[in-house]
């Protein structure tokens, strides 16, 4: 039963059957297609050596292009999509980015180079390369151990200054071809004892998941991919939610906006940045560009990680979660979703459909801080997001949410209480900081010690108060 995986590789149609659904795109490229330009550096989406360009119809007659990590992308994800690898880019002589990389001496050992080439190429096609910060941001998910990055950034700037060819007609033709390849309805692929289901409407998803509550939902597979490549787990039944149209929407209404669970981090970043600049910065540092292009809002929440960066930010904002199971829908406050480590308030067959985010009124004060060992592309030691609603000088309501401080993303209820009904001044912060020790008994691990986590959490309250009450500089990223 089922259909073959149909996609376009470097301009040529491909059909695949017989390979396990959890076969990664990288392994397929290297072992089966014998395209060895794409490299494995880490098999967990943290080094970018496996970067490939994936295109799909954007629903408006054109293409949506993304550079993603082939090492944690499952092969059936390619169904109805087109993939381009580094070999194809240089088919008619060196592409401008390839030429610039050679001329700038941007490769030394060369092992990371194809990933940088593809990442910069994809960023350029999407109009994401403009200046030095944008080039550096584009390659934050690519590791190079040899060059020190300078020549790569310079090559990226050379590319940014290179005009893009007009691809509208070709894109439209490819989009049409891909739509035909994809076919209507739920795509079903079966092989080697595994099943992959990919519905395209939320009702079909709800029915499928209600019927198969033991299935594993994936969208970008930026976490579930590692269950296969790192934990070597068996995933017999996977439901891919990445094509469900309703989950891909962002809608604004009535002073709030709704973000579908399948919206990627890259897509929501734009909207969150409008809500508050800290949220834009948080999303920029959330992960490398490839992960941001693949991972989704719903995945980051439903995953239940105690160190996921979005939940604390959304909890502080006062977000509501929309859940769906079969025909039933329910809402709950996001903080109530997280029950304990690895345990969420989610029934079998129930899935995260959307998150509803309120806009910030004039009277609200907000900040989000991500503290990690490395500034870019690192998992937070402490993630903090604060919202105060002021009544004049007095704190009327407080939402202090943290990641990395407990077994779940969590509000600091004692610290919040310490702030209520008084001005948000140094004394109030001291009281809240003291109360924070009641709220949290964090762990020591490879990212940070318990003592550091608590000190930083307390100091971030101080930073928040300083930022609201003075023009004292508090952020190392804002110093020249």
């Amino acid at each position: 039963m089922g259909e073959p995986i149909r996609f376009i590789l470097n301009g040529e149609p491909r059909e695949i059957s017989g390979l396990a659904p959890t076969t990664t795109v990288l392994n397929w490229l290297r072992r089966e297609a014998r395209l060895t330009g794409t490299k494995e550096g880490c098999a967990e989406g943290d080094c970018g050596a496996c970067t490939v360009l994936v295109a799909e119809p954007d629903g408006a007659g054109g293409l949506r292009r993304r550079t993603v990590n082939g090492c944690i992308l499952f092969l059936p994800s390619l169904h109805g999509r087109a993939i381009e690898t580094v070999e194809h880019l240089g088919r008619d002589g060196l592409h401008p980015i390839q030429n610039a990389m050679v001329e700038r001496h941007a490769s030394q050992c060369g092992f990371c180079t194809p990933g940088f080439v593809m990442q910069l190429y994809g960023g350029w096609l999407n109009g994401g390369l403009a200046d030095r910060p944008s080039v550096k941001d584009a390659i934050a998910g690519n590791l190079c151990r040899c060059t020190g990055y300078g020549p790569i950034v310079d090559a990226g700037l050379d590319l940014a200054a290179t005009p893009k060819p007009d691809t509208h007609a070709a894109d439209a033709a490819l989009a049409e071809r891909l739509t035909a390849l994809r076919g209507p309805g739920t795509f079903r692929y079966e092989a080697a004892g595994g099943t992959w289901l990919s519905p395209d409407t939320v009702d079909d998803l709800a029915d499928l998941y209600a019927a198969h509550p033991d299935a594993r939902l994936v969208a970008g597979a930026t976490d579930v991919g590692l269950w296969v490549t790192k934990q070597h787990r068996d995933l017999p039944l996977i439901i891919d939610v990445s094509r469900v149209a309703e989950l891909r929407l962002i809608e604004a209404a009535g002073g709030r906006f709704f973000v579908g669970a399948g919206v990627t981090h890259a897509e929501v970043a734009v909207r969150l940045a409008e809500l508050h600049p800290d949220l834009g910065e948080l999303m920029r540092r959330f992960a490398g560009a490839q992960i941001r292009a693949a991972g989704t809002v719903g995945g980051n929440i439903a995953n239940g990680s105690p160190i996921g960066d979005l939940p604390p930010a959304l909890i502080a904002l006062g977000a509501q979660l929309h859940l769906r199971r079969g025909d039933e829908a329910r809402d709950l406050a996001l903080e109530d979703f997280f029950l304990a480590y690895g345990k969420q308030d989610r029934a079998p067959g129930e899935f995260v459909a959307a998150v509803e985010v309120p806009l910030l009124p004039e009277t609200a004060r907000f900040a989000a801080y991500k503290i990690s060992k490395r500034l870019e592309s690192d998992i937070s030691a402490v993630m903090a997001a604060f919202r105060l609603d002021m009544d004049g000088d007095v704190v009327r309501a407080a939402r202090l949410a943290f990641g990395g401080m407990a077994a779940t993303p969590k509000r600091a209820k004692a610290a919040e209480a310490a702030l209520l009904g008084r001005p948000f001044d140094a004394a109030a912060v001291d009281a809240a900081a003291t109360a924070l020790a009641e709220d949290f008994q964090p762990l020591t691990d490879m990212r940070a010690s318990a003592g550091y986590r608590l000190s930083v959490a307390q100091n971030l309250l101080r930073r928040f108060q300083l930022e609201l009450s003075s023009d004292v500089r508090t952020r190392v990223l804002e110093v020249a």
Partner: protein
Amino acid sequence: MDETRIQDRGGAGTVPVEALHEAPPPHPASIRGGVRQAIPHDSGPKHVTGAARYTDDEPELPGTLQVYIAMAQRAHARLVSLDLQPVRAAPDVASVLAAADIPGVNDYSPVFGDDPIFAEDEVHFVGQPLFAVAAETVEAARAAALLARVEYEDLPAAIDFDAAVAMADAAGRDLLDPHEMRLGDAAGELARATHRVEGRVEVGGQDHFYLEGQIAYAVPGEDGDVLVRCSTQHPSEVQHNVAKALGRPDNAVTVEVRRMGGGFGGKESQPALFAAVAALVAVKTGRPAKCRLDRDDDMEMTGKRHEVRIDYHLGFDADGRIRAADFEQLVRCGYSSDLSGAIADRAMFHADNAYVLPAARIHSRRLKTHTASNTAFRGFGGPQGIVGIERAMDRAAFALRLDPLDLRKRNFYPAGAAKLTPYHMPVTDSIIAALVDDLEAWSEYRARRAAVRAFNDTSPVLKKGLALTPVKFGISFTTTHLNQAGALVHVYKDGSVHLNHGGTEMGQGLFTKVAQVVAEEFQIDVESVKITTTTTGKVPNTSATAASSGSDLNGMAAQAAARTIRERLIAFACERYGVAAGDVEFLPNRVRIGRTEKRFRDLVGEAYLARVSLSSTGFYATPGIVYDRESASGTPFYYFAYGAACCEVVIDTLTGENRVLRADLLHDVGTSLNPAIDRGQIEGGFIQGLGWLTTEELWWDEAGRLRTHAPSTYKIPTAGDRPDTLRIRLWEKGENRAPTIHRSKAVGEPPFMLAIAAFSALTDAVVAAGEGRAFPDLDAPATPERILRAVEAVRTSG
């Protein structure tokens, strides 16, 4: 030269030479790609298109087996039983190998015989290889390995320094004997000094994080021979270890490597394990076998940079001149000896860095811990030694209320005076004072010192720091006999050149530089010089491409080989055309013989017809290298490389977050063989050093498990960590006083230590956070957590 005429056996010898000239010689002003030209890396176009082949990219032969190595799960334990029967019975498994299945010696160590391929009675770290499974797919091999029944009996384990010292003291011996260097009466001079500072600094280890993990591919041959393609800096040692494991002579094994996806020292002694395992499988099964590690297994199984704890004492005169120094270095070696002795020695050789220590005692203990065996890593212990004295200098400047740069400058090895190092070697080539003066001006150190102070006066939360630190790095293998190299050059009768040497290409541009040397020697465009795979079959008994020596050694050897052929061509031309040797001149892509010129290829064709050998080996041994361990004295280095860096940083005193805002690097590469490649080494080395000193933290849990074993948890620098203002200059006055290849200097390792300026600048910022009241204890890596702890300490002291 007409190819068909040369090929024509009947008439070639009878063709009049003059008739062969079918094209006039070209007259370019210079060749393309000679020495000192900034040409791109030879593999650049292949890197960017994915066409450059690494070991895993070569097509696999039919029947290739995939090999998985199963690892111990205890830090220190007796291996009570190892039942592999269920593994052998698992689907798709072709072969399972443990210690008893090794026909030769169960050891892959470089020197000391204490690195078992597979554990026998005891395991000594989490990650130690227990056995290997060869199967049709790596997934099947890994799944089968999980079926093994392993029974351990735990033994006490030492993971950190304190436990290692306690265990060594209780046993009455260290992993390797301690070593001590003495110059003058250090204790007496310290006692007489008017100012003394003392302190301790711990410098963390570092994972190599080469992007291409360890890999070996073994193809069985006739007579039990084996060919191994391996990502290694040391093909000869891999060859020897594979032969040793197979119980065969070295000539049964050929090891090849075209390129590595990074090495940094991590592919010096480590690859022998994977090559031996793949070869054992191949020879036992008669099938090709590949052993490729994934990132986690690689990081758990292989050694890293040595963590070092340094206790220092410095004594000064009132004017800030060092009178005496005492360093006690504890070196965390991991479970076995590996290269730890030489690495610990190099830490001692660099305890002085660029400073005259009139009296010194440097003592080093080499301690066993139950962790992976630490190994070579860019700098080979030197960086740790230098951090020790730079830390001491910062503390001394604080105590003496001097600008740290002024204190440093007062103590440099002088240019003319040949002062002795603590190992009694006169420093005759010091240029550090002039180089630092240049950098001080170029980086606008004094103006920026004032600007940093002004910033800090108005910024209570964020604090800036500034530092300018020197590097002096000794060039040569300190093990004398390793300072040799061989090359093999063929000139084919069409004038194209085949170049081979014992050096390996790991991205550092060695192949490009050596090709430039050969192109220069023949005066032909570098495109005419074919760069070829390193193989033990062409050049034997090579040393590792390590110790920054690659181009020094292999450049000289290749030059010697090319020169031999050139001399033969000159002798031939003299004889044929009746001119004196002085009348034969190699000009760009042509040769002048008397008053006529001909193309290089035409002369070569004529020489072939005249039965002149157009192939030669070349050999080089660095002169004058000696070190006597008994007296801890000698001349372990051929020369020194120098450099200096100025770094400006900012820290957040609420979170410890930090950033390098600007770096100015001035480095002496002598007369550069290739300025573009040298700049790449400087920038790359600096950023790698920056990672070592800031974000790269190795973290073991109480059970001795390394918990930072993938990029999700182990954080090497990203593009975002590179300061936007990063200025790099090759020192224009650089010229090697030693007669090295075209008077260049080694560049692989020395720039790594330029990053110590960032560590000093972070210290300076922490001092500012405490308003100069206290000098902070700060260990490396200076993570946000360590910086915050240091800030809290200086703010609550005094």
